[in-house]
């Protein structure tokens, strides 16, 4: 299977310290923190910011169909999305941190979705909830986009049709983990820009 740029991006980013280790098996000792680059203060600052962000992810529910109803259930009293600090839905993309794409994205809708993604302020994450958003699901037809990762980068996929609220929360936990471990300046890095460029953004 050819490695896509998205995959590369994931490998580079998710396993930053291990990358060289895995790829070359050569024993390279990391420079102690603070010698170069961000340094100690910045990294612990990153941690704090990551922690703060992970507890205050305001989702933009891009709910088009069935999964939207399960999202309502997630918001509802039984699951209470608010526990994670995310009950403040922001329908304005400027204020949102997490784009939750829930439901089928038809080809007619795809420019709208891309537009919404572009309007979001950095840092932004994307979660594809449910079979339709992730891969088209049962709708393998002329009018349905076979997965939103064709037009925007996706961070976490949640399987299910629709996913139970447990699954949505599980995916949300994965996003939180990502947010927590992300370097503060990832968004300025070349790889990230390259990844965006592969989607024709900016």
């Amino acid at each position: 299977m050819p490695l896509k740029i998205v995959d590369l991006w994931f490998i580079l980013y998710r396993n930053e310290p291990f990358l060289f280790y895995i790829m070359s098996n050569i024993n390279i000792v990391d420079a102690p923190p603070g010698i170069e680059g961000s340094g100690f203060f910045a990294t612990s600052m990153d941690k704090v910011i990551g922690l703060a962000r992970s507890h205050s992810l305001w989702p933009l529910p891009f709910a088009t169909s069935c999964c939207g109803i399960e999202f309502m259930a997630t918001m509802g009293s039984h699951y209470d999305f608010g526990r994670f600090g995310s009950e403040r839905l922001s329908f304005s993309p400027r204020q949102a941190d997490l784009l939750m794409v829930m439901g089928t994205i038809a080809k007619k809708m795809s420019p709208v979705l891309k537009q919404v993604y572009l309007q979001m302020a950095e840092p932004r994450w994307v979660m594809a909830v449910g079979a339709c958003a992730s891969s088209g699901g049962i709708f393998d037809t002329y009018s349905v986009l076979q997965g939103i990762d064709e037009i925007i980068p996706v961070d976490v996929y949640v399987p299910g049709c629709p996913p139970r609220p447990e699954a949505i929360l599980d995916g949300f936990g994965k996003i939180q983990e990502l947010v927590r471990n992300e370097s503060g300046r990832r968004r300025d890095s070349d790889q990230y820009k390259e990844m965006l460029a592969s989607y024709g953004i900016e």
Partner: protein
Amino acid sequence: MNHNQPVYIDNDPQNELVTLNLGPTHPATHGVFQNVLQLDGERIVSGVSTIGYIHRAFEKIAEHRPFYQITPLTDRLNYCSSPINNMGWHMTVEKLLNIKMPKRVDYLRVIIMELARISDHIICNTIIAQDTGATTTFLYLFQFREHIYEIYEEICGARLTTNIGRIGGFERDFNDIAFAKINKFLKEFPIALREFESLLDRNRIFIDRTAKVAEVSAEQALDYGWTGPLLRSAGVDYDVRVSDPYSSYEDFDFEVPVGTSGDIYDRYLVRNEEMWQSLRLIDQALEKIKLEPAGIFHADVPEFYLPAKEEVYNNMEALIYHFKIVMGEIDAPKAEVYHSVEGGNGELGFYLINDGGRTPYRLHFRRPSFINYQMFAPMSKGMLLSDAIINMSSMNVIAGELDA
């Protein structure tokens, strides 16, 4: 994007009107559809609706799937009340195949369909409340949708897109937990519904927002092909369950609530009253089931209904039927059939043409949301923006059903 669409020019400084783009991802469009409105201040002068943002080609897929694989598709039409769609489809095929259902299965279906109706109306009415600003009511009633989900899960194993039942019955009998949960629901839900009504029914703010807004006369509603709670709120007591009974609805004693003016408050009242009637229906169905022989959950039609797993193992005939059914090679008459059920939003019709192949030759869904919604743009003329938004939520447009 849409070349033929009338375009409102907004650059003219002399122009007093403002063009406002409502949707496709506006918070009030629960689902995706777009309305381009021209506003004079806050009053709507004209509007154009664009739909099709989640067109998924249901009818084309249906031509490529055997009958039993269409059930999961129908789940995704009106996903707020998928069991009604499932059952409606099953009944269409049963009509085609001339299968007579045992009474007990009919009653079990009534229970499930009425639960689905309640869950559909919960969504719609709480969304009306939510759009007028009363978020809390939404969360109060939504807890009971969760209970309905539990009942579904006990019977079919899924919460929302249920794929409940099969052509010829149910996949399994209701177990004791399911009955216990239904009884619990019947006990608890009326209290919550009464509380919900006490929060909104006589609250002047709510009445002012909804009463005398978006009034529709019976003639207009019929002209635009409205069905379901919307048509009933306009004063026409048309209900498929009564006028064309299916699934033994003729055995039940219930009322068809109708409104007088067709405004949003009437729609709200009609839906609330229908929830009460649904509770009555479930109650009666539970009583009637006790009189029927226990353990029957499907019709005795081995050529159309999948045999039990042990049978497949030990019985050659069953194995052959099993393979034939799964391959989709059932002997269905070459005919066309129209069957409709009372869905959450109105008459949900299935027009099926079978030519004897594995798959339907043509399957058309009469989707109530699609037909109801076309009146939205003409009727918004002269409304305030806020009214149009509640009007939209009171029409309960489900995008899946709208766009197929």
